[in-house]
């Protein structure tokens, strides 16, 4: 299957190139900006000696490309930071040190990652099921009352910003109706049931928007597929309508939609930032907002890179999924 293998190889190479390019852009944008990089990195409360030390560690005297090269080296092989008295080893992939919180950036990220992953992955399941289900249903029942209601609902869901839905949910469900307590994150390893209950509202608020968008897309895709010639063929052979929709139309309509889902992870991450902030979940998004507010540069850069990595990966997965679903793509 050299065709498909070749395709995978090309996509893999493309992904690596994209990641590299992003890392260059990010590095240049953040570390080449005017202003005292060392000052910003160290933070507002640093003394001049500390700033000087930071400047040394970051080798700010070196030209930009050399600094980027060090950065890349650190990413792949780890780096050692000398703090005058001791040497701190930052193992690969090394994203630098956060001077303001006195920890390694990768450390910070790894602590917060499980929360965000729980949020995003759980929401993804929800929005796939809800969104695709709604979309298929509204295409199947087009013209009838059910469809109109669903269309109106999805429109409303699509139009409401994520945090507004979250706010409303929180106020209504936790405040007024008191169905659930205000969410607090519980680790999955500690108590799976509580983990799920607490994440329910955040999952819903994140998922509803994406579900609405998915429903719209699925519906449009289904309608388009249902109008195609091969559907007509199977009708002309007496295949039951249910089979036509479920087996033939669905496959054709879903191929682009499902592949797009992985693509969508990127924008969902944005929504996750909002949801975490709103519900006070200690995830990457909330940490990023905090870092932005105190201007902790290494953390900000590190997070952007990590998140960018996931997004690019998700895009690549989407491409591959699409090719698997629709072999014709491989020929191009």
């Amino acid at each position: 299957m050299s065709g498909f293998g070749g395709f995978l190889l090309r996509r893999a190479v493309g992904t690596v190139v994209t990641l590299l390019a992003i890392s260059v852009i990010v590095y240049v944008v953040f570390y080449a900006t005017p202003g005292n990089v060392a000052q910003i990195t160290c933070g507002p409360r640093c003394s001049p000696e500390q700033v000087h030390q930071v400047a040394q560690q970051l080798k700010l005297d070196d030209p930009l490309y050399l600094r980027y090269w060090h950065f890349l080296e650190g990413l792949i092989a780890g780096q050692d930071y000398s703090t005058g008295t001791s040497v701190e080893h930052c193992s690969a992939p090394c994203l630098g040190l956060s001077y303001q919180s006195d920890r390694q950036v990768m450390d910070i990220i790894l602590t917060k990652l499980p929360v965000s992953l729980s949020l995003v992955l759980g929401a993804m399941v929800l929005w796939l099921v809800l969104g695709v289900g709604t979309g298929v249903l509204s295409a199947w029942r087009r013209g009838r009352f059910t469809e109109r209601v669903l269309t109106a609902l999805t429109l409303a869901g699509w139009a409401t910003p994520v945090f507004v839905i979250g706010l409303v949910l929180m106020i209504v469900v936790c405040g007024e109706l008191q169905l659930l307590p205000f969410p607090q994150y519980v680790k999955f390893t500690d108590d799976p049931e509580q983990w799920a209950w607490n994440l329910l509202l955040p999952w819903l608020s994140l998922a509803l928007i994406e579900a609405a968008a998915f429903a719209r897309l699925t519906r449009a895709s289904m309608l388009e597929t249902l109008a195609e010639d091969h559907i007509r063929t199977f009708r002309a052979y007496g295949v039951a309508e249910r089979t036509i929709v479920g087996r033939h139309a669905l496959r054709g309509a879903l191929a682009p939609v499902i592949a797009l889902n992985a693509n969508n992870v990127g924008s969902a991450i944005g929504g996750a930032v909002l949801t975490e902030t709103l519900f006070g979940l200690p995830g990457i998004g909330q940490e990023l907002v905090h870092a932005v507010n105190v201007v902790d540069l290494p953390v900000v850069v590190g997070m952007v890179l990590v998140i960018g990595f996931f997004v690019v990966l998700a895009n690549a997965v989407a491409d591959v999924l699409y090719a698997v679903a629709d072999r014709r793509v491989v020929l191009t």
Partner: protein
Amino acid sequence: MSEALVAAEAAGTGVEPVPGASGARQFWRRLRVQRAALVAAAVVALLVLVALAAPLLTAIEGQDPTTYHPSLVDSARGGVPIGSLGGIGGDHWLGVEPQTGRDLFARLVYGARVSLGVALAATVIQVFVGVVMGIASALGRGWVDQLLSRITDIFVAMPLMIMSLALLAIVPSSFPRPVLVTLVIGFIAWGNIAKIVRAQTLTLKGLDYVSAARLSGWGAWRIARRELLPGLAAPVITYAAILMPVNISIEAALSFLGVGVKPPTPSWGQMLTAADVWYQAAPQYLLLPAGALFVTVLALTVLGDGVRTALDPRAASRLSVGTGRRREARAGKESEAKAGKENEARAGKENTA
């Protein structure tokens, strides 16, 4: 916000050329028929009016969005507005903001300026950059196309929210915030529209009437201007109509996080930052900006749908049940030949097919 899905939605409609459109007149006629879109257009027009007339409206009320009125809030109780329903009265038509006592109506109305203005400006930037990149990519030689497409892909992959957050962090506060937010959104999220423009330009490039223009003796510039750009109008407008509500939501989200438009400049998203805390005492503090956002995004989305249907009626005909697309009987032969030509000639087409 699901920019990727938005892109896919728009991309699905714009790529085929619509034959038989005598342009603007047909478009308006088709738009006028859709009542939902007309209502939405009216709402949008109203919002724009409110935004433009903000100074006038607040002058009538006699307030402004930034003055603190500490006397109107009860600092003993944490800043709750005095008076029923958050201090609604003749002086302050919609009450005051908790803690600061700023006039809510004024903030709301000026907030419309920010939301609409930022979103519009960002959309303009995205369209401009996207169109330039898309056309350059489609018309350029092989390596130019490769390079520009690669760059476009990178920008498509960049998560808007994250990058915006990060960028907004490092720029000093002396730079005017709304402008900054506009620039950030505009210059990061143009990728999808570039892809659409590129795809459409490639399609148009291959059309016979463009070849005919070449045969007439016209140069490349003239052809690009007279034949290609008009063909791009439809998909670009369609996509821009979808971009608007998305950009409004993004700006609101950034302001909500405290990173976008910062006080004292009002923004609807910013007003929601702590709204849940004050819900009991001053419900309108939550409901008004949330409602405003909802209505704005909804109206723009419905209008966008209407615009898309008006530009490409086949998108609407998807709603009617049919037994299949009709095709030009003989054109099918040659077009299948063209499409399959490369593969078949390569496979060494046997005549015992």
